[in-house]
């Protein structure tokens, strides 16, 4: 069941093995129904999640990327989510300059016991992505799109006094 419409969108999840992946398991064991769009990649720790994985997914055409780790202080490896928090926060703050809607990326903390919270996170995030709709491909997909892009005023950067002319 995708969140709103029939069409599934592509949402990638990166979950740490010890907390959030367990939280998703807990949600499953409790049969907490969730939208089906999300596919989860298991990593040992949120500290293993390179923000560039998120960028790679978005540039490959993911409609949304969700990262979840242990709550701060609860990291299995003591410090992983502290590093992750800094890295991911900077990515989230950076996205607006690229024109990629930063709402397509979110990071949060879910513990292994928080099945209900996981259900809530997945449902809300999937709803948000469906509201945003399918992401635009960074590479123009057709020649026509390419032509339109080449003629687009914004692409010439004319609104930017320093960089366009």
């Amino acid at each position, binding site marked *: 069941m995708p969140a709103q419409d029939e069409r599934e969108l592509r949402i990638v999840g990166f979950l740490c093995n010890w907390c959030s992946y367990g939280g998703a398991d807990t949600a499953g064991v409790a049969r907490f129904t969730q939208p*089906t769009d999300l*596919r989860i990649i298991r990593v040992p720790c949120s*500290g293993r999640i390179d923000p560039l994985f998120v960028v790679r997914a978005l540039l490959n055409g993911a409609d949304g990327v969700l990262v979840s780790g242990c709550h701060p202080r609860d990291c299995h*490896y003591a410090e992983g989510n502290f590093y992750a928090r800094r890295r991911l926060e900077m990515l989230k703050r950076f996205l607006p300059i690229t024109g990629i809607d930063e709402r397509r990326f979110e990071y949060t903390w879910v513990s292994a016991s928080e099945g209900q919270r996981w259900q809530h996170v997945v449902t809300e995030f999937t709803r948000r992505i469906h509201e945003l709709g399918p992401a635009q491909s960074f590479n123009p997909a057709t020649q026509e799109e390419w032509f339109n892009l080449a003629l687009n005023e914004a692409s010439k950067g004319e609104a930017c006094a320093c960089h366009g002319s």
Partner: protein
Amino acid sequence: MRIGVFICHCGSNIAGTVDCESVAELASGFPEVVYSTDSMYTCSEPGQEGIITAIHEQKLDGVVVASCTPRMHEPTFRRAVERAGLNRYMFEMANIREHVSWIGKDKEHNTNKAADLVLMAVEKLRRNRPLVPKSFETIKRVLVIGGGVAGIQAALDCADGGLDVVMVERDQSIGGKMAKLDKTFPTIDCSSCVLGPKMVDIAQHEKITLHTCAEIEAVSGYVGNFSVTIRRRATYVDWTKCTGCGVCTEKCPSKRSPDVFNEFMGTTTAINIPFPQAIPKKAAINPATCTMIQKGKCGVCAKVCPVGCIDYEQQDELINVDVGAIVVATGYDLFDWHKYPQYGEGRYPDVITSLQYERLLSASGPTGGHIKRPSDGKEPKNVVFIQCVGSRDRSVDRPYCSGFCCMYTAKQAILTKDHIPDSQSYVFYMDIRAPGKGYDEFTRRAMEEYGAQYVRGRVAMIYPHGEQLMVRGADTLAGTQVEVPADLVVLATGVEAAQGAVKLGETLRVVPDQYGFFVESHPKLKPVETNTAGVYLAGACQGPKDIPTSVGQGSAAAAKALGLLSKERLESDPAVSKVNLSRCVGCQKCIGTCPFGAIKAITDRQGKLKAEVIETVCQGCGICTVTCPQGAIQLEHFTDNQILAEVNALCPPKMNASFE
């Protein structure tokens, strides 16, 4: 590569909402998949045999099982593929039960999702490589830090189990807080009678080496092979000679030393044996108050000592010892109640802590077991106990319950009545927490048999009222203000992490929580383990605990250490980080971010700096892999390429090179 895919129905658990046959059929078209099938219960004996047969018949070199969560059966299937001759890391699992069939209702969507998860697993598996654990010998010796009841229990259990034990205690004697107690709840038996024999056992056990007045200076190494440096403070007494006769303490003219053992209720001599049952029963000089050490005049103790063991020139000593496991049992300290303005901040001598009250109750205490209040030495008639001083109070950043104050307050109320039959105890409390065996009955006895008056409410202030103190508080059950005149006020001060715990945690790479208590590996399933392999927790250093729980944990930690060191050799998990030396530029950023100190700098044959992972210390978190901009250090089994393969499987890159 030749990959086999096995889709599990899990009865109807998966097959109910996932078309397992279709997933298996789709998977047969995935890259390098040569065999794909579905089965009813893949984890069952026939299911596992099916995998093994397929590995042999199809010459598989990698296996994907799509079933339940890998957190459940990954070890099971790894063993199965290992039985068939594959490396255990040539196996991947797709979780199509907890993450698919149990949470989605639409069979078509579920089936697609299951197929995607299988594809991800296949793409990752294609980049897996066999990993082989390294094995190494262990040192059959345990370090126990802290000589309280938890540490004592752990040390005795380890030693009885055949391990050498090194115990390190910061104070002059072992015994910890329990040694200061008069009686223990709920049995009212004598604390030192229970503890004393165990302390003696420590001193006499041939496998136990005891260092008191000592602290941990540094720890390096890894599970099975720690290297520990212990700093033993100078005691100015040669303990190899000291017989503990006590002549020096009788003759010492400097009597200004704070009496630590008696919770600062009075003073003691500069050279001192803290209490008669002390282990080791040796004298030590407090250099801050010793006239000889401070001013170079006196030397009485040296003159009177029959064995000539006084050494004013003694220096701190560093002791190195190698151990295979470490038990941390550093206990707790009492909350500093002076932070509360309502209790007078120390202006009223007759406001004391519960532990001070224990010393007043104790026959070996400063008053010889007679309850005399500090201000004038009179016997108090009205004793007011105030609970939750520094517990369950956000205003002083102590939101947690200290757990055992309810019980000892009830005990002290009972003992007060025993000592002074015409006395009256009042107890201000928030809730009564008495969940242990016989605990609730015990508090009820305090109220019902011993007439302690329990008032549910907080105390707003204490002020002097003639020779007495007036305690003003709320009675929230009656909904009124109450004022109780008190001859003595006893504060049930809460528990906080032992001083220096955070620093010790850094040395041991054990994380303290925000209040300084050490964090266990798992709150339910690994309560005495830490995230540093080979370091275990016992007692109140992990959080407030009463005596039986601490003792239980001491035994539990000992069992863990014994279990660990019962193996001749240990194997390290091979899914650890690995440096590609040709890509490493030696910037050392990874060394800085590793939480375990598992990476060190080395110089290669060309004299260039490189990073090197100490495989046995690395825990496999992957922080370093993200830190390294060149991708030169890769966490095995979760390499960039493996994770990227999963990303690319989910979001395939488009193959349209040229647009213009």
